């Protein structure tokens, strides 16, 4: 079974079907990349280079915009994507981004 699933031909993200560890080599559309992040099941990676401000497409539909440039194979999540509708407020402790204690 492939570890990543493309849900729609127009998607610029892929969904992990299982936990995939950093360092794993994968091929996306014939392009070889090595994962630099641990990707948990059902989390997303970039399927093509995404620039800050680009629309993120999943299920063939927009799910928000990139807030930073995202290279192929990098984790796409709340640290680099924002909603075009309602901000996602509940993420401070759960977005997977480590923060220094203040």
């Amino acid at each position, binding site marked *: *079974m492939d570890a990543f*699933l493309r*849900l729609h031909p127009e998607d610029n993200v892929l*969904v*992990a*079907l*299982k936990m995939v560890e950093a360092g794993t080599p994968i091929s996306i559309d014939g392009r070889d990349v090595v994962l630099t992040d641990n990707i*948990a*099941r*059902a*989390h*997303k990676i970039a399927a093509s280079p995404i620039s800050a401000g680009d629309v*993120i497409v*999943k*299920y063939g*539909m*927009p*799910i*928000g915009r990139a807030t930073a440039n995202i290279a192929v194979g990098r984790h*796409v*999540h*709340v640290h680099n*994507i*924002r*909603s*075009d*509708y*309602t*901000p*996602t*407020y*509940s*993420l401070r*402790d*759960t*977005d*997977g981004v480590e923060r220094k204690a203040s």
Partner: protein
Amino acid sequence: MTSSIMGYQRKDGRKGIRNTIVVAYLVECAHFVATEIAQEFRDQDVQVIGFPGCFPNEYAQVMMERLCTHPNVAGALLVSLGCESFNKPRLHNAVEASGRPVNTLVIQMNKGTAKSIAAGRAWVKDALDQVADVPRAPMAMSELVVGTICGGSDGTSGISGNPAAGKAFDLLVEQGAACIFEETGELIGCEEVMAARAETPELGDELRAAVAKAAHYYDTLGYGSFAAGNATGGLSTIEEKSLGAYVKSGASPISGLIKPGDVPPRGGLYLMDVVPDGEVRFGFPNISDNAEIVEMIASGAHLTLFVTGRGSVVGSAISPVIKICANPDTWNAMSDDMDVNAGAIIEGQATLDQVGREIYDTVVNVATGQPTKSEALGHREFILTYKSFDPIGPACLPAA
């Protein structure tokens, strides 16, 4: 496709798949007495529902009337403290008019806790004997109302559990059943694709307006329908969660838009608008999954399909909840609480169509009497709070 469902024939013409006596408290002050009454009948189908508030609320009044006359309900004991604002004669009369045994027990007129509990238990004991004789009748799939919600969602919900529930919905609608999906706050971003499925352009406008109302409501509250666990499970934005939730509606045309307590007039697929009308007054539209399930049941749902990725253990009073697990890890951890393993789709061991069929078959089996996991475990959750709704307009319902 034939079904072997033998429903409980109610005098109002509807048929139920369970034969429940409800003990309904009309204010929180009467909750304890109601629970104690029902406790005596723990191994029988006697369930506690109720409204905690003391101030009057038309929504809660209507919900209680619809719930106490739900096809799965055989009779109702109404437990009142005595001084609350709930309109107990109106509820009593509605249950009586439906041909079900009903009694109103007022604690202040029954000398307090102990004597009220004794009187309540005596009434329930008699009622159980009476409703044991409710006639059974064959029940067609077209007489079934099925709701679907999702809770504890993660990134697997939208690729296995919800689309599989959508396949089951398509099969049910094809058989003439009325199917209800909901949570307009989790359809933000889907309004245009959804409106395109409406049977009429006017209904399409109503569907768009319902989602816009939800977006405004959540904006005012300053918090969308997005919980911490959603993000841990891989979801990044409300529209991503919405798209994953939307697919549980399946692919059938949308026949109508209803509000909590409205019973679909015929088979087809319906959206339930759960967000209160008017000014934002009541806090979050559905503070927990069970508030949504109760609204489905008030609209006549005999069964609810509940899709979860991260896991849930809830059931409900009145109508069985079928839990569909989207995530294979969650299935492995919590299969004692889950009825259908849609995680098999993620692991490549089953197709969406196969799991959709399994969900459909589970609906038939549960309607025939097989208990769901949550029923067997004794789950009977119930929540009812304050809301306010305007009546639906003519464009919301299909032509007869």
